[in-house]
């Protein structure tokens, strides 16, 4: 994928990518139609392959795809073992255990029907799709770029999250190193004792690293006190947290099927209002400044708009109970392809073109490959 409608390469505002990805996720949460879900995944994959940066986090999309498969397998597995069977197409008749009366409804073994497995698969696929949408945002936006857009009042909290996120890959590398060392000492590298033996050095190493990082951040001026009083700062953070929680509950009530619409909208509005107040306050007194903040311009509007459009198309379709959004599994029918969601999906692919290209990372020489033994 080369070329963009906007020729100047730059980083897109991280929030635009997240709005787009959350729009996709919202859409996915509204349907069990496997064709639509597959299309959502395809849209995410297309955009990611067109606009993902050549950086460590850019490679995380594959991981989320694999995670999706695991989710489906678990969901179907749970259905196999515990789920109640319905439908008529019996695939397998396992010996069942009748549960005592106080555990009515929980079942172990018994008939396994095609219909119940199909339902589990649809359900798993929906969850997997939502995860993959989050994964798409994750691979398009670096965690620290996202942090740059976190409001000043939440900055400290954001730093700890980002540091924790960058530590995870390092932890994996550490586990690898310690396993290597165990091999060098002629010890088993698999098994429970090996894991227990490896845990201590890995944790010690991680602790040591975080202390070093803390010292480095302190020396570079992290957490300098500004003109603002501590009490006021704490009050600001508290306000913002309350606002965010309210907004989250509101959003959840809005998009989650089966919750009262009346609760959702007011909560969301109040939450957003509280957030904005707190952010404006803290912005006025913040010590920190931002280096080259990402602008919010036409491409951002287009990308975020695409996300909002797909969410609206699916929400509207489910509002009017458009047929085809849910695929009945009993009896199994071939899924239909409703028009409105399809239109939304089409719009959601546009960021592959409307998002600006990324700035070139001049890689003149091969990556350093010195690997600690």
């Amino acid at each position, binding site marked *: 994928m080369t070329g963009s409608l906007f020729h100047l390469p730059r980083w897109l505002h991280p929030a635009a990518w997240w709005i787009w990805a959350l729009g996709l996720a919202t859409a996915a949460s509204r349907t069990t139609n496997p064709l639509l879900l597959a299309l959502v995944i395809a849209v995410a994959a297309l955009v990611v392959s067109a606009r993902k940066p050549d*950086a*460590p*986090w850019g490679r995380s999309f594959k991981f989320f795809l694999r995670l999706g498969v695991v989710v489906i397998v678990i969901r179907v597995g749970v259905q196999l073992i515990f789920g109640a069977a319905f439908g008529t197409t019996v695939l397998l008749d396992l010996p069942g255990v009748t549960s005592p009366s106080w555990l009515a409804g929980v079942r172990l073994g018994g008939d396994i029907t095609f219909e119940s497995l199909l339902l589990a698969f649809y359900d798993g696929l929906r969850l997997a799709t939502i995860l993959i949408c989050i994964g798409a945002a994750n691979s398009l936006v*670096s*965690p*620290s770029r996202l942090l*740059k857009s976190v409001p000043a009042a939440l900055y400290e909290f954001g*730093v700890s999250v980002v*540091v924790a996120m*960058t530590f995870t890959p390092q932890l994996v590398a550490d586990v690898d*190193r*310690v396993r*290597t*060392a165990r*091999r*060098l*000492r*002629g*010890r*088993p590298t698999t098994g429970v004792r090996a894991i227990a033996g490896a845990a*201590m*050095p890995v944790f*010690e190493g991680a602790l*040591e*690293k975080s202390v*070093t*990082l803390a*010292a*480095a*951040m*302190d*020396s*570079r*001026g*992290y*957490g*300098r*006190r500004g003109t603002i009083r501590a009490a006021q700062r704490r009050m600001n953070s508290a306000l913002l947290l309350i606002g965010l929680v309210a907004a989250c509950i509101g959003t959840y009530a809005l998009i989650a099927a089966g919750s009262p619409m009346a609760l959702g909208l007011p909560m969301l509005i109040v939450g957003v209002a509280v957030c904005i107040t707190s952010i404006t306050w803290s912005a006025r007194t*913040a*010590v*920190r*400044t*931002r*280096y*080259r*903040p990402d602008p919010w311009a036409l491409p951002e509007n287009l990308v975020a708009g695409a996300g909002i459009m797909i969410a609206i198309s699916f929400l509207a379709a489910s509002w009017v109970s458009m047929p085809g959004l849910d695929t009945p599994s009993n009896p199994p029918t071939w899924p239909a392809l409703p028009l409105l969601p399809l239109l939304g999906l089409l719009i959601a692919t546009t960021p592959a073109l409307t998002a600006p290209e990324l*700035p*070139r*990372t*001049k*890689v*003149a020489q*091969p*990556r*350093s*490959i*010195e*690997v*600690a*033994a």
Partner: protein
Amino acid sequence: MINFEHVSITYPGATEPVLAGVNLQIPAGELVLVVGRTGSGKTTLLRAINGLVPHFTGGTLTGRILVDGRDTATNPPRELADLVGMVPQDPMSGFVADTVEEELAYGMECLGLAADVMRRRVEETLDLLGLADLRNRPLLSLSAGQRQRVAIGSVLTSHPKVLVLDEPTSALDPGAAEDVLAALQRLVHDLNVTVVMAEHRLERVVQYADRIVIVPGDGESIISGTPSEMMGNSPIAPPVVELGRLAGWQPLPLTVRDARRAAGPLRELLIGHAAPLRIIKGERDATPLTITEKLTVRYGDVAALRNVSITITRGEIVALMGRNGAGKSTLLSTMVGLKPTSAGIVRTNGKDPREIKGPELVHSVGLVPQDPGDLLEASTVAGECRSSDHDASVEPGTTRALLALLAPEVMDGVHPRDLSEGQRLLLALAIVLAARPPLLLLDEPTRGLDYPTKARLVKVLRELAATGHGIVLATHDVELAAEVATRVIVLAEGEVVADGPTQAVVLASPMFAPQVAKILAPEDWLTVSEVRTAMIEQVG
């Protein structure tokens, strides 16, 4: 610029102060070199300059430290961030952002500088340190030398008046180290920055210093003075100074160039004396310890090793050299079977190392990794020795006895993490040697080692080679290679570009030649001790 007035620092739980009665004045615009043994308190001295000691580490500070008139006792490190730039020992561990440009801006963002000022300073710093091509690169993809320059740049953008660096070149190959030192030199000359730097590799830095501060440790008072004063009777000195003292040159030269101009008489004196050939002592055993044939190892689409064919036999000490990322560590790990080969053959002790499992491996080959601490997992030295005896299935007490030979001062009850870098290396070496592997591999053994520990390591390696061990060292330390190696292999981009006797290889390359060789060229002397022996013969 920096004033220490009767400063004593005691860490919590310690009975003795690390530093006692320190009086030190460092004027603005000087490049100050802090030297001393590991564990002597160098790092404490450096970290006291920006208040990390005691604000971050705890402990008590008596006396007063003033930096540009600001007292570190009342100003925590974050309030001194605009004044003192601190570059930690491992630059990667201090990075906060994930690309070069954002890392450079991070400190300024914390200080709350205006957007246009930040933009200008980032551009200036990119140019000053030669990082412009790397601006969008993820930090994880940089080489060690580039990381070090980014770390320096990231504190420079705040325009500190003082720059503090803890062993900036210890992990770097000679070329990258020169880049970093040239950048520091430029800061001192062009921007009047005061630089305080701790470094063990005196041969790399001593010629740049305006002042040397020696931290003797053990509560003795620190000494400071000009380099020529201090080097005249310092117990630790680079080869150029040692040669100057041996030959009685006045004034004592600190640079290779000055020494060469003074070396005429010495060169004449040595005519007729051939530099000793490095021969392999002990009985020669024709069976090779390890062979690689057309070995290729790939990481993704990058070839870490290409067509490497080498043979290591008993009694050899082979120095494996080459810049960061040339494939040295990969070659060592392949010999132990840690990395799968893409093509070609490796045979260690006649077997594919990947097939050798558990105890058999430790009896045929031992690798001391770059960070020897990786090997250690017990909570005391004694426990580590016991589990090592068990792993190697040898007589209980074997490892402890070896450790007593290598590092007699190490106590049983100490936690391995509390040992100094050098002591940890020797402990790891003792563990590896317990199983008596005929082949011993060491990855960067002298990183962070002071001269006395290095001398001890050299002695141990020579004895091991004399008793029929084969040794391979991956190292950036040209002086170490000149001192012990019987053979040098140079790797570049995963290929063997030179393989031969030490003299032949190191003399052919200005990058890998030790200081003595540069001074006495075209004669092929490599170390001060060789010259000393020849002079004693001459006199006697």
